């Protein structure tokens, strides 16, 4: 009897723990609709070091889903969004992917996975014939062979070229590469070093740093001793906050110009670093390179309005999401999948997958549309369409990758960035040969 009681208590404790953990592992669904609704899954970290990824994705999907439903839905179906927490860990993500596929009978498409779990889970989703709009930047997918894999954002290795080109344009010849030792961050480094060197620069320090340590003062001292003119960087928000605050402490209260990846313009990164070093230092010294998606044009207004209509995020986060190319990309991914379903006259993922390029890529006689509603209307009228969304044209190559120009932007205040310049696709092609 006693044993039963102990076991029962242990079970309760474990169940409580797992239940609370499950708040993240099977995240909240939007719209409150289940049943016959088509589900767009946000397959990304909602917990762990990259816990900020999932909520942004869910909010952008929620906005797109609401707009789709307001326009009448997809072939008579309403849509909804549901988060699945990968914990940013490949092992956890495999279990989450299998659970998602097994338990979501009306799964229409996936946004994600991220670099944290893409290598482990893309094959699983592909085998299940689920179209996925991955937000991984890994170069391993530059020539993806998976039929159901799509990437609307540029690969990380391309970003390295853009960062080097920008630093070179400012006359910097001594660079320090400070990247987290995670797969996603490290995938930027080879092309960055290659391009910066090819442009006549020298990478005087190349640090691959362990994440979330209590101190980086030794690393900072070592980096400063090499006297770089610019720091190239990507790491998680907590690591960046500690590292950069220690740069300021050991460098007389000043930073060194920082050229970061798009991670350094994301809401949580900015929040963490601003709180560590102050907004004025960040504003003065840091820029981030991200896919070019100007917050303007016919597709941007509907995106922004729908985003702000979402109740799932704070106003300050919405302000940052509204200028984040990745949030725009998530919105566009949902719209592209929904329009492909209409073009295919089927919500079956295995069938509509091959119609994605039919609604995204340019072609003779195609009508350019900037919203789901306009696209659905044009398709209903028997026209062919090219959807050009908030993140710009998505022109997929034969490996289902879409790459464009990059913008260089700096922090102004929460949700506000200033555009410093653009690195064109032609500039990148000139040095990368891609």
């Amino acid at each position, binding site marked *: 009897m006693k044993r039963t009681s*102990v076991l029962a208590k242990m079970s309760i404790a474990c169940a409580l723990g797992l239940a609370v953990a499950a708040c993240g592992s099977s995240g909240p669904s939007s719209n409150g609709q289940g049943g016959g609704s088509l589900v767009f899954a946000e397959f990304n970290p909602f917990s762990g070091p990259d816990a900020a990824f999932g909520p942004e994705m869910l909010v952008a999907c929620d906005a797109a889903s609401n707009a789709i439903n307001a326009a009448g839905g997809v072939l008579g179906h309403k849509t909804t969004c549901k988060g699945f927490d990968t914990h940013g860990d490949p092992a956890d993500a495999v279990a989450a992917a299998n659970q998602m596929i097994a338990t979501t009978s009306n799964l229409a498409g996936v946004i994600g996975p991220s670099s944290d779990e893409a290598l482990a889970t893309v094959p699983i989703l592909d085998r299940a014939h689920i179209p996925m709009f991955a937000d991984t930047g890994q170069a391993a997918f530059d020539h993806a062979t998976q039929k159901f894999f799509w990437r609307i954002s540029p690969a990380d290795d391309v970003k390295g070229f853009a960062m080097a080109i920008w630093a070179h344009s400012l006359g910097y010849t001594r660079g320090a590469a400070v990247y987290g030792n995670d797969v996603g961050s490290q995938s930027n480094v080879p092309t960055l070093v290659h391009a910066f060197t090819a442009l006549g620069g020298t990478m005087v320090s190349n640090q691959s740093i362990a994440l979330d340590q209590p101190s980086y003062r030794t690393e900072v001292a070592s980096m400063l001793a090499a006297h770089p003119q610019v720091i190239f960087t990507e790491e998680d928000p907590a690591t960046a*906050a500690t590292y950069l605050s220690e740069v300021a402490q*050991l460098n007389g209260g000043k930073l060194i110009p920082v050229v970061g990846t798009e991670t350094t313009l994301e809401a949580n990164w900015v929040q963490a670093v601003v*709180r560590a070093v102050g907004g004025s230092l960040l504003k003065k010294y840091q820029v981030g390179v991200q896919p070019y998606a100007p917050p303007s044009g016919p597709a941007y207004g509907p995106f922004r309005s729908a985003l702000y209509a979402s109740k799932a995020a704070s106003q300050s986060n919405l302000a940052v999401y509204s200028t984040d190319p990745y949030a725009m990309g998530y919105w566009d991914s949902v719209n592209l999948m929904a329009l492909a379903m209409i073009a295919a006259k089927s919500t079956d993922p295995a069938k509509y997958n091959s119609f994605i390029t039919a609604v995204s890529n340019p072609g003779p006689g195609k009508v350019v549309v900037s919203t789901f509603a306009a696209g659905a209307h044009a398709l209903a009228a028997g026209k062919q369409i090219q959807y050009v969304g908030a993140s710009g044209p998505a022109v997929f190559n034969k490996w289902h990758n879409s790459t464009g120009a990059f913008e260089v932007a700096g922090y102004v205040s929460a949700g506000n960035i200033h555009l410093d310049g653009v690195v064109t696709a032609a500039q990148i092609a000139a040095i990368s040969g891609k």
Partner: protein
Amino acid sequence: MSVFWSSLGFGVVTASILAIAAVGFTLQFGATNIFNLAYGDTMTAAAFVGYLVTRAHLGLWAAMLAGGAFGGIFSVVLNRAVYAPFIRRGTRLFGMIIVSIAVSLILSNGLQAIWGANFYSLAITPGRSLRFGPFIMTTVQLVIIAIAIAIMLAVHLLLRHTRLGRAMRATANNATLARNCGIRTDLVIDMVWLLSGILCGIGGVALVANITSFDFGTGGQFIVLILTAAVLGGVGQPYGAMIGALVIGLATEVSAAIFSPEYKELTAFAILVVILLIRPLGILSEVAQQKEVVVA
């Protein structure tokens, strides 16, 4: 060469934070034999208490006091409400590890539910950077070192020169014998949880004061280093934890200077593995064979 010498100074800062936390962890384990893996998350919760205090413009000292008070009270309640009932009903050592993992998950996800996946900083300035030869430290870091030294001395005095300290050591050695000798082991255990919780709370505030930006998972990530320091020094041995913290703190920083920053954690684990190889019984086998959890 100057980076090497600087790294020694930086290592002392890391070691100080680690020592506060590791001594608390090992004090509690030494007396109760509960491997409390929720310790790191308790540090985070205390850090949030410290955050609220600094937001009220009460400064770092008040934040440490509040964080310590929270950590102490929370730990006593945690033991009384969760751990002790399990032990009374016969849950053994490894079962308690699972219970503590469940508590850790509840705490971590509870903190995420309350504070969100956002980052916070104590509303304090790190102060001026001061140079002592090759060493550079901020005033906040000097405060952390001073607090760590004071705590280590206080723990030494407590254990060696007070009745409570002797009772704690007696309970840690053999709880049944101590009880038969008239020691109120239930009160001693409460005091151990209180003291270790206070150190946990102060450690949490010190940690986030040093790293400047934290979220709901910060303490949970730090637990690995705490365990490494505690095991290295001989788990359950407060003096060992102090030495362990110093070795791990210095080794991680110096390795970043000599080898690569990428190998900081690897260095800590390598030291742990070497120690466990030299002492073949290791932490878990020793515990499993010779000790059991203690509630009163």
